[in-house]
């Protein structure tokens, strides 16, 4: 036999051994400890394996070296031992290479966005480069109209479709995440499509301020003014962010007047109506008020359901109607929360490769649907379990060993271990000063009973669900 054949044989044996270990120790332990092991070579009667880190070698030595040796000897009785060594270098090297690849990946991944930005400005004059990128997915078609937003929708459409400015400015306001930005982007997308020659600039108030301050620092305010005063449609999102910023407001005021004088369209959004914007200069407030002020109201159940259906259709994912009804019912705050919630559920399902169900939805949006994860206390467990089995709470601490109280007590200890982080000695103390080994025994006993008594298992599961709320 050549050494190469010998090595192939060893590799095959290792494949067998690791798959046996996989069934013996379970998937999680296998993934953590066995999978990272590399077979190095056979060295006489010693099998040499390597692991990437020191603590892994400690752990593999402590837990699996006997078993590994035994399994090898099953394959080949001449094997005396399995030797574990740490081989970090190859890994760290690989890691560095991986890092470089990934950095390359990262920049290429951001590529499409950059290109998209590039495309949108192609052939337009330099002024439009100041616009933030406009996501082409936000159109009037993708906006779901309902009672709460139909007025704002109609006003935005009017601005987008009109040849001459119908009202200046259009001021859209409403609570967060109700679709103001969507409407503004829809206006931009529409105009860019039907009249590509018109210079449409969309940006957040924060960006307007940032550019202005930079222009001041670079003593380049002339260019700044030129850029803004040559636009045909200026849309400033979240104008409340320049509240209290006097010089920015002043500049915005002048830009605003210059554009209005030239008959250019302005669209502004905020979280409140102009008069309620604190820290906004009086003269600017009156300017903002003098066009059309349209508000978007909080969503209704019907609108939310409509939004979810339309969204699901757009992303092309099958979502059970029960899940959509649940979301429309539970996530009432705003559209962003609603769509965000749906996105999270879809992303999770794709990550773990399972279908979307009501259960996974509740699990994924756990943090959103419930304000906190209050931990169950041992006392609550004792109370609930006593009620369920119809015994006195004091029996949880009593020394009575009759089965009618001993079994519920064991169930309560079991649940205390599952649902709280308390140490076993402490759980024991709460059950009438019992020893931690008693708790361990109870846990083991309940596990055994669950195994062969489905009724009992269901009881325990029911109690757990009640306690977890």
């Amino acid at each position, binding site marked *: 036999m050549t050494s190469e054949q010998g090595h192939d044989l060893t590799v095959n044996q290792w494949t067998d051994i690791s798959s046996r270990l996989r069934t013996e120790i379970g998937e999680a332990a296998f993934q953590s400890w066995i999978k990272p092991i590399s077979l190095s070579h056979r060295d006489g009667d010693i099998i040499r394996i390597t692991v990437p880190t*020191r*603590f892994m070698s*400690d752990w593999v030595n402590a837990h699996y070296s006997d078993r590994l040796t035994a399994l090898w000897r099953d394959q080949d009785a001449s094997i005396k031992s399995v030797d574990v060594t740490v081989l970090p270098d190859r890994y760290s090297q690989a890691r560095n290479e991986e890092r470089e690849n990934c950095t390359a990946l*990262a*920049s290429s991944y*951001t590529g499409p966005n950059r290109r998209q930005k590039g495309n949108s400005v192609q052939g337009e004059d330099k002024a439009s480069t100041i616009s933030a990128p406009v996501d082409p997915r936000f159109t009037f078609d993708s906006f779901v109209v309902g009672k709460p937003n139909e007025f704002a929708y109609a006003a935005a459409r009017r601005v987008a479709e009109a040849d001459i400015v119908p009202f200046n400015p259009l001021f859209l306001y409403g609570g*967060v995440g109700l679709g103001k930005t969507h409407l503004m982007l829809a206006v931009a997308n529409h105009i860019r499509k039907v009249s590509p020659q018109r210079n449409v600039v969309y940006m957040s108030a924060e960006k307007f301020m940032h550019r202005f301050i930079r222009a001041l620092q670079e003593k380049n305010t002339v260019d700044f003014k030129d850029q803004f005063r040559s636009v045909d449609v200026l849309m400033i999102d979240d104008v409340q962010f320049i509240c209290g910023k006097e010089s920015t407001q002043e500049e915005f005021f002048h830009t605003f007047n210059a554009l209005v004088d030239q008959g250019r369209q302005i669209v502004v959004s905020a979280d409140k109506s102009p008069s309620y914007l604190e820290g906004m200069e009086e003269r600017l407030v009156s300017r903002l008020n003098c066009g059309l002020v349209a508000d978007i109201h909080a969503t209704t159940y019907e609108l939310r359901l409509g939004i979810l259906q339309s969204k699901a259709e757009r992303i092309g994912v099958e979502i059970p109607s029960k899940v959509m009804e649940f979301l429309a019912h539970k996530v009432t705050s705003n559209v962003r929360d609603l769509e965000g919630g749906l996105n999270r559920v879809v992303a999770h399902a794709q*990550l773990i490769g399972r279908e979307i169900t009501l259960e996974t939805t509740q699990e994924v949006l756990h943090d*959103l649907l419930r304000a906190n994860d209050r931990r169950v206390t041992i006392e609550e467990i004792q109370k609930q379990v006593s009620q369920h089995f119809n015994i006195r709470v004091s029996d949880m601490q009593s020394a009575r060993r009759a089965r009618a109280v001993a079994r519920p007590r064991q169930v309560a200890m079991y649940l205390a271990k599952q649902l709280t982080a308390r*140490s076993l000695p402490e759980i024991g103390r709460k059950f009438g000063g019992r020893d931690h080994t008693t708790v361990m025994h109870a846990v083991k006993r309940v596990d055994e009973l669950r195994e062969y008594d489905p009724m009992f298992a269901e009881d325990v599961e029911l109690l757990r669900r009640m306690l977890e709320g």
Partner: protein
Amino acid sequence: MNRAHQLTFDLVHRSALSREDFLIAPANQQAVAWIDKWPDWPSQSLAISGPPGSGKTHLAHVYMAKSGAHLIDGSQINQINVRDLVETNPTLVIDNAEAVVSEDGADIHEENLFHILNLLKETGHHAVLCSITPPARWKVKLADLKSRLNALTHVAIADPDESLLAAVMVKQFADRQLRIDHGVIDYILPRMERSFRCVHHIVTAIDALALREHRNITIPLIRQVLDTLNQEELEI
């Protein structure tokens, strides 16, 4: 402690923070799956929440090694130009992200985080946010930020099971280059609070006592540490 006792040097240790050092268990496998999946993410940001010591920082470092991400602490967000931060870094890690809301009257933090999230959308750049509580539960005042936090792709690291606790403990001893017998872990496990935080407390206390008294790490020493910790807990 009243008895005269020896003070010790502060011998710092370094935690192994590579991907291979991360212990995958049911409690954290989803978080790991998201990091492994990068850059194939459905959105710009990923929020990872979990109790102290659950491996968030470790995962963040795994992500940094993978993506070359720049690391900042949530408490620094008010001291930087957020636009420069996001524009110059294709990938970011914001550790301790809930620091943006924990300080009183720190509206500026909230506003800056809000801009960061918007800028990520605008630039297509990526960020990982680490926090103890899920972002959807932070008490933010800025409604715009609130709804963006609610919409973040979020994964929680759950409470550890026993095998993960044991593994984390082995790792923490290894990080401190302490050679321990496996019997020691078996002794501690059923006697401790089953949390990541407690693993860290116990390992730190064992290390300190062994160093102070120049003792090997044995069951009697462990017993002494557990008694002391219990005592402290009772006093609180």
